[in-house]
């Protein structure tokens, strides 16, 4: 296999233990090049441990871990990393701090200031080049760190909870930057427990709980697999017979009122076409509004985590 065809990240049977706690158990992952993959899971599921292994900050106890087909240690300069625990040199100036990180990532000194200035403009932090990091708000510091992760144009960008603690405006700015980087062909691997962002951004999601992978599928597959197969219809004129009429349509398994009691929710049998049933329903009950119910990643997350024994016991501390 040539390097360009190899996945950005591969984990095969990776195990990591901290004392008596299994932080990661036999984890298999495959992050294709150019993809935008979300690593989801509740607090303490092992997401950060997996990411730290990919970043070669800690080594797996067992299993194989490849980044761009080789040792993660050799790919450091090709990876950009935004850790979960944010940190800056408080007394250092923003520009100086980012230049330092860029130099550590192998960027030449020449032209680096302009590059930093460009990124500060791009993520709406103009004029802070000479400000000290401690003078910035927490959200602004987070954006500075985001620049630190992407400044050297890495092939793989690993973002650990990139949106936590950000206000909606700044979240939107970062989401836009992430989408732009993806369009440029970079591989993005982000961990989050905020399902809305994962749903909005990721083309593939991997869900882990208690160190084990419990879901690995494209967002479309997840939607299809976990679809509730339900149609919600809000009648134009309310009638007591509406529910009986709709229940009589072929393929409708059950009928119930929605939580706000304004709509009727029909559950459709697996072997029937949702579009066909919806057309029949509309001919019999004129509707103000009708739609096929969609599953949210939130629902899938809660359902799968509950099925697999609930949340992890405790967040993992340390990284020996």
């Amino acid at each position, binding site marked *: 296999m040539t390097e360009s065809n190899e996945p950005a990240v591969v984990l095969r049977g990776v195990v990591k233990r901290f004392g008596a706690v299994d932080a990661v158990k036999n984890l298999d992952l495959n992050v294709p090049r150019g993809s935008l993959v979300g690593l989801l899971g509740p607090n303490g599921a092992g997401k950060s441990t997996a990411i*730290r292994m990919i*970043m*070669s*900050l*800690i080594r797996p106890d067992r299993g194989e871990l490849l980044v761009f087909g080789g*040792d993660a*240690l*050799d790919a*450091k*300069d090709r*990876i950009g*990393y935004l*850790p979960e*625990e*944010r*940190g*800056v*040199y*408080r*007394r*250092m100036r923003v520009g100086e701090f980012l230049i*330092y*990180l860029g*130099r*550590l*990532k*192998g960027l030449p000194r020449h032209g680096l200031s302009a590059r930093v200035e460009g990124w500060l403009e791009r993520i709406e932090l103009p004029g802070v080049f000479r400000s000290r990091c401690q003078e910035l708000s927490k959200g602004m510091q987070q954006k500075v*760190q985001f620049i*630190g992760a992407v400044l050297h144009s890495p092939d793989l960008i690993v973002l650990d909870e990139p949106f936590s603690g950000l206000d909606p405006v700044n979240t939107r700015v970062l989401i836009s930057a992430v989408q732009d980087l993806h369009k440029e062909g970079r591989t993005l691997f982000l961990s989050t427990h905020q399902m809305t962002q994962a749903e909005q951004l990721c083309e593939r999601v991997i869900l882990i709980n208690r160190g084990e992978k419990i879901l690995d599928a494209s967002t479309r597959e997840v939607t299809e697999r976990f679809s509730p197969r339900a149609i919600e219809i809000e009648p134009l004129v309310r009638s007591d017979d509406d529910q009986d009429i709709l229940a009589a349509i072929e393929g409708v398994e059950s009928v119930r009122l929605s939580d706000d009691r304004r709509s009727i929710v029909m559950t459709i049998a697996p072997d029937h076409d949702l579009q066909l049933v919806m057309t029949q329903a509309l001919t019999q009950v004129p509707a103000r509004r009708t739609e096929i119910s969609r599953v949210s990643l939130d629902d899938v997350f809660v359902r799968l985590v509950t099925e697999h024994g609930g949340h992890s016991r405790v967040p993992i*501390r*340390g*990284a*020996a």
Partner: protein
Amino acid sequence: MNGPRTGSGFRSSRIWIVAAREFRQTVLTKGFIFGAIIFPLLMFAVIAAIPFLISSTPVPVSGTLLVADEDGSIAAAMQKAFDDYKANGSQPAPGSFEDAIATRPTGPEGDLAGNFEDAPISVEVIIERVPLDSDLSSARQLVQSGERLGLVEVPAALLAADPPRDLDISLLVPSDSPAKTTALFSRIARRSTVVARVERNGSDLLSAQALVREPKTETARLTTNGDEAKELLELRFLLPGGFMMLMWIAAFTSANQLLTTTIEEKSSKVIEVLLSATSPLELLAGKIVGQGLVSLLMLSTYGAAGMAGLAFMTMLDIIAPTTILLFVLWFLLAYFMSASIMAAVGSAVSDLREAQSLIQPAMMAFMIPLLLWMPITENPTGWLATITSFIPPIGPFIMVLRTTGAIEPIPNWQIGLALLVNGVSTVGLVWLASRVFRIGVLMQGKPPNPLELLRWARTR
């Protein structure tokens, strides 16, 4: 690629980038610039300037001094002394008779006229005698009003061959009389009393001075190869102590800074960002090198100030170039040992308070050279000095005491063996620190005990 790889993921250029940041962030602070550079230079400048400041402040003395004595002999002697002083100016000066007789006399009255190096430059004093048995109240009023420079009252018994020991000369001066002036009057009154006493008792002052004059001694040490080494008693103790203290301060200031910055990087969580770009070993090496450069800068500043001081006193030849070369080597070993310990501890804890308990044993060991300063300097080739030279981490400090203080050269085999033993120990300590550092920097929670640190060092 950034630079040559010296191992998996190990690049020297990253070390220099980290080192440059450490150096800049430490040196370009007001605290460092003032405390480590400006303050010592200022101190040196002030010390160097003091003699000029003092000598360039003339205090003219002009007027009449009242002298109450039994027969006028003391008044006459004092007038002569003032006249001689005016004629000869200030000479190397004793403040006491014992000092005066140890100096070669310059005339029949010996050094009466001179030897007042901190006395006023311009002196124009006329002596007015007042009989001792007269009413001195009007004389006192003249002094009080400032019309007279002072009143010297010499009891008659002080001119006897065996004067009572508890009897003093009385000197009254106006309240605003400068201290230098009163000191001059006091000295001349004392010496003139002695001159008058000697003459009254029929002796010759010059002969008496010559008889009781103590000769000086010049000590030299005979080395094993037969050479004579001149003994400079004060420097024999001060020079090694100065060198060792300089090394101790420079090494520990930087090692302490290393501890602080490591804890800061860990507690501010910036360490994980750094480790995504460098390996722990590169980061540790960069930090140690950066702070090492800081300590070398401090060492150079203080060292240069010290050398300038010696040059000022025309004593630069007491330090051989090889001594300085060896000093730098001992310093590097001491710094790397202390820095390794501090970096390892800094990586393992979350704040300075937690660091204290882990550092304490090491600090106690590093205090030992301070306690051994005197015994080692007293006998730099003795068994205590020899044995402790080979015990890390105190060996480099002991060797500095020995090489800068020994009259007799330290045997080359001892220098070589001490370099080898302490050098190997330094490499070992740096390696151990790197093992602890790579685990410690990512650890959170309860600080480890020393046994756990050793377990980390063994972890693959």
